[in-house]
């Protein structure tokens, strides 16, 4: 049974999901960032690959939508690398999703990534990846501590 292939969003050119992603251009074009239908295809194909690589199943495209909404307003997001950066961000997100063992909400992970991206990483995806690996490592250490087991695991992500 390969639920990953069955449940993960399959790309249909005029599906609601594609139209929803295209509609985000209305907001992001203010920053000069616009996705073409081909760009969306690239993003979704990459998303499905990452989900498969990380052995995850996703029901909708909310994460990709949120990544576009949040990161398009970053002063470091460059038009020429928009799609590549979004793909990198997708990979970092699902890496974090797995490493935090589903104990942190999607939106908190995205906001944490955004804070670092716009802060100490100054728009560097490589640096962001490294910082998120550190965070994930610390999260796992905290998880092993008795205190963190009883006091809630999400506090560091607030």
């Amino acid at each position, binding site marked *: 049974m390969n639920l990953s292939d069955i*449940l993960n969003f399959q790309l249909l050119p005029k599906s609601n999901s594609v139209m929803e992603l295209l509609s985000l251009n209305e907001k992001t074009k203010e920053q000069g960032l616009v996705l073409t239908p081909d760009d969306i295809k690239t993003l979704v194909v990459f998303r499905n690959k990452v989900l498969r690589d990380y052995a995850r199943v996703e029901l909708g495209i909310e994460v990709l939508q949120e990544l576009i909404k949040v990161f398009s307003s970053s002063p470091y997001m460059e038009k020429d690398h928009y799609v590549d950066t979004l793909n990198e961000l997708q990979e970092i997100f699902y890496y974090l999703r797995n490493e935090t063992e589903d104990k942190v909400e999607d939106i908190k992970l995205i906001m944490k990534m955004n804070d670092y991206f716009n802060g100490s990483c100054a728009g560097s995806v490589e640096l962001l990846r490294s910082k998120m690996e550190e965070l994930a490592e610390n999260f796992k250490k905290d998880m092993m501590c008795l205190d963190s087991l009883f006091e809630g695991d999400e506090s560091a992500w607030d």
Partner: protein
Amino acid sequence: MGLDNTQDCSRSVSNIIIDRSRLKRNNYILSLLQEGQRVGAITSKKAYQIQGEIMQVLQQLIRKYTQGKSTSVTSETAEDIMVSLIYAMDVYVLHFNNPEEAIVHLNFESIKDIHAKGVELLRQYYEDAKQLYQEMKKID
């Protein structure tokens, strides 16, 4: 939600002949779907619709599992939820007197209802088992 809706479909049962050797105790409902299609009691269109409905219920259960805080789960979690979904549906279709009757219900009941009725049956079986256990303890 009543568990007994057999009145409307009783006359259709006699038209279906299922090869019981093709049915599997585990994943009973899936083998029933296959056998139903083989003997022409379930159309391929209906089977496709049922598969779609199973996926819809699975999606609802996954959303319930994440409490809306995440849109994704590990494949392992999704498969575990799928197994529990199939298990509950199996319990419902197995409670009929014969597979022919179960197939008729597969044709006119929604998967959402079949799953919900399976869960309700499991709850009843659990309560019955608890009661039996208490009675057994009294005998000791």
